Every structure is written in C-alpha cells, then in structure tokens.
C-alpha cells in the first residue's frame, strides 16, 4: 500500500514549500491588477465604466478554458499511466473551473445588459460556454457518483476527454459563426488589437487568476491526499 503514496508524499512536501509563495504572489497580483483596472486604465469612449467588467470577464474566461484543458490533460495521463496524482489533480481542478465559468457567465450577462440590451442570447459563444458549465457539473457529479472513488475518477476522465471537443468550439465560435460577441482581439496570431492602457491591467488580472488557480489547486490536492491517507490508516487499523 505504501508505495502508492511514496510519490504523492513527495508531492505533498513540494506543495508545502511552494504554497506560501504562490499565495503571496496571488495577493500581490490581485492588488496590482485591481488598482490598474479601477484607477489607472481609462473608461471606454463607447461603454463608459462598464468596460472595467472586462478585467474580470476575460481572465476568468481564459481560466475556465485553461482549467478544462488542464483536466483533460490530467485525464489522459490518468487513463494511460494510471497515475494517482493525475486523478487527484483533475478532481481538485473541476470545482475551480466551474467557479471560473460561473464568473464568465455572470459578468458576461451583467455586461450584456448595457451593451447588447439583453442578459442572454443563444449565440454560439454563449451557448458553448453554458455547455462548458454543464460539462463541469457532469464531471463533478460523475466523480462522486460511485462508492469506489477510483471508478469515479476513471469515468470522469473519459468524460473530460470527450468534452474537450467543446474547447475549440468556444475559442473559435466567434470566428466560425458571426455572433454578437466580441472576436478575439488579444489572443490573436498577429499583434494584439488593444490599447496598452487596457492591456496592462488585463494581463495583471490574468496572471492573478492563474496564480489563484495554482494556489487553490495545491491546497485542494493536499487536502484530498490527506483524506485518502486517513482512510487508508483507518482501514488498516480496523483489520
């Protein structure tokens, strides 16, 4: 039994060392990002101050997609190499991703009301993000649907890989179908089509979201590992 936790034990040690740094970094990036977003960057000439929603909306959209990609990668590793840590990482990341997706959906709706005059339209970008949200929910539900946690992890891994087809759809929906939604202006192959005054806070917030994700992921994975170890100890004590 012990060899299964030997590697995770090393992970726990490394995580313990990294955590304080990543947590501090998250805090600093958020402070800087929010400062630039609220006080330094200009209001939009068309949209006024509502444009500042962007500094939350866009980073969380990036993270919602990045997080799903991360889960899909971990799932592939879990299915091919049957690595325990990959299972745990995927399980830990899913609720975070669902959270980011909720943020995209709510900030998007909030932003949509003043700019498009409606909270919601059924266009390809919005719909595919909603689908992403349901995929996260399905992933979480499936993980916990079996009495045997390993079964749940494997089943969820298959689902994550299947659902990955949605990510390119979200990304390119604005190019493939003409929609109300903004096409990519920053993450383009050529130069970003965005004012540097807006770019700085956006990038800062993006990095802050990323650091937050890493920190939370480490915390959740460590908790999960500890719980598994406690269960194993309990069972061996019962025998």
């Amino acid at each position, binding site marked *: 039994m012990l060899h299964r936790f030997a590697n995770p034990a090393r992970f726990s040690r490394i995580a313990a060392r990294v955590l304080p740094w990543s947590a501090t970094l998250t805090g600093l990036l958020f402070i800087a990002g929010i400062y630039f977003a609220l006080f330094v960057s200009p209001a939009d000439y068309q949209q006024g101050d509502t444009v500042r929603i962007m500094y939350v909306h866009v980073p969380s959209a990036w993270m919602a997609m990045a997080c799903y990609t991360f889960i899909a990668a971990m799932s592939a590793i879990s299915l091919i190499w049957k690595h325990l840590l990959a299972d745990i990482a995927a399980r830990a990341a899913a609720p975070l991703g669902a959270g980011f997706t909720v943020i995209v959906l709510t900030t998007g709706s909030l932003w949509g009301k003043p700019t498009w005059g409606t909270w919601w339209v059924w266009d390809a970008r919005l719909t595919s993000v909603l689908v992403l949200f349901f995929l996260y929910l399905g992933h979480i539900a499936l993980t916990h649907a079996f009495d045997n*946690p390993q079964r749940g992890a494997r089943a969820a891994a298959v689902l994550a890989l299947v659902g990955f087809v949605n990510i390119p759809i979200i990304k390119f929906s604005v190019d493939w179908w003409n929609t109300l939604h903004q096409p990519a202006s920053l993450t383009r192959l050529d130069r970003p089509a965005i004012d540097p005054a807006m770019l700085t806070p956006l990038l800062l917030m993006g990095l802050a979201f990323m650091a937050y994700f890493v920190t939370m992921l480490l915390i959740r994975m460590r908790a999960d590992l500890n719980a598994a170890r406690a269960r194993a100890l309990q069972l061996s004590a019962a025998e």
Partner: protein
Amino acid sequence: MQGLTTHKLGCIRGERAVFAGLDLALKPGRAMLLSGPNGSGKSSLLRVLAGLLVPAAGRIDWEGIDIAQDRDGHRARVAYIGHADPLKPSLTAAENLAFWAKLYGFDPDIEPALFQFSIESLADIPVRYLSAGQRRRVTLARLALGQNSQAGPALWLLDEPATGLDPGAVSMLANTILAHLSNEGVAIISTHGGRLDELLDASAERFDMGGFVT
C-alpha cells in the same frame, strides 16, 4: 512452468484488501477446488484470474508468461461462470446459447451441449419460464459448447457452478469438467462442499481461501 501460476497475488475491492500474497500453481489436467467462508474472496479471485478485475498486486502466469503481456490471448482461453446466469429471459434457451456460441466462434450446433445437460426439451422455452436449476443448466451448457468446438477455452473458472443443480445434473457437470481435464485443460472451481467435490476428488487439488483473508 506449465499451466497456471500466481505470484503474491493481491486484490482490493472497495478500498478494502480482500486477499494478499496468494501463490497458486496448477498443472494442466488438474482442477482446483477453492473453499473458504462467505466473503473470503473466492469470487474475487476467480474474477482476477479471468482478467475481469485488475489485481492490486502480484502477477498471474500462464505457461510461464505474464497474462498482462497478452490480454487478448488470455481472454480467448478463459471460460467464466459467475454467480449470476447471463441469460435473457425473453429469449429461449436455444437462442441464448446460440448467441454465445456464435459470438465466441464456437461450433454453432448447440444440440450436443443441450444434450450434455439434458435440456433438449427446454430448448424452445423462453428462459423466463425455466426453474432455477434449469436456468443454471443452460448457463453451464456454454461450457459444453466450447468443449465441443475445435479450440475451446483451456482455463475454466467456475464460481459455485453446482448451485441449484439436482444430483443428476451435478454428475453431468462433473463429467463435463473431467472431460475437460482429460483434454489437458485446467479448472478452478469455487465450492462450499457437496457432491461435485466428491466426484472431482481424484483429479483436484484443494485450496482454502480462509487463510488469505486480510
């Protein structure tokens, strides 16, 4: 080493170790009667040997080669009978058997198999209307199917096969198993004692799972 051997085999079900450190060795032409109290892991062991459950530790060798190296080859040599009867109630006994015969590529003539378990008269009755023992006979007739075919499975894994059988049917089963053994086949049979044990006594090793419960 000929036949089947296991090395330090361990099995975990639902986060609980069922058995560990199991070493078995069985030569061609021999049977092994697995006994042990309820919940000692006989069914789990048979499922591990069939490749249906992945062992938590240890390995299984066939003719000296790890079966994990050759999953397809191993599946082709296993005949597995579980606790449940994998029969569809709405199909007749003959239809049920014919399906498995065709799927496994066995001889499609199922008459001899029906005859071997004395269920010719039930062939055209939907399984829904059969008695418990009659159903078990239909399930077991699958063994005869493979046996009567050219290259049938060599490793029989039978989980309490005699459940619900009358003494006559137990003899038919014993004869079927003995014929398999005489063909250099191997059979591992879980049991709680009874007529089948007695009939197979001369050709069988005995193994008590009781000692390996963890």
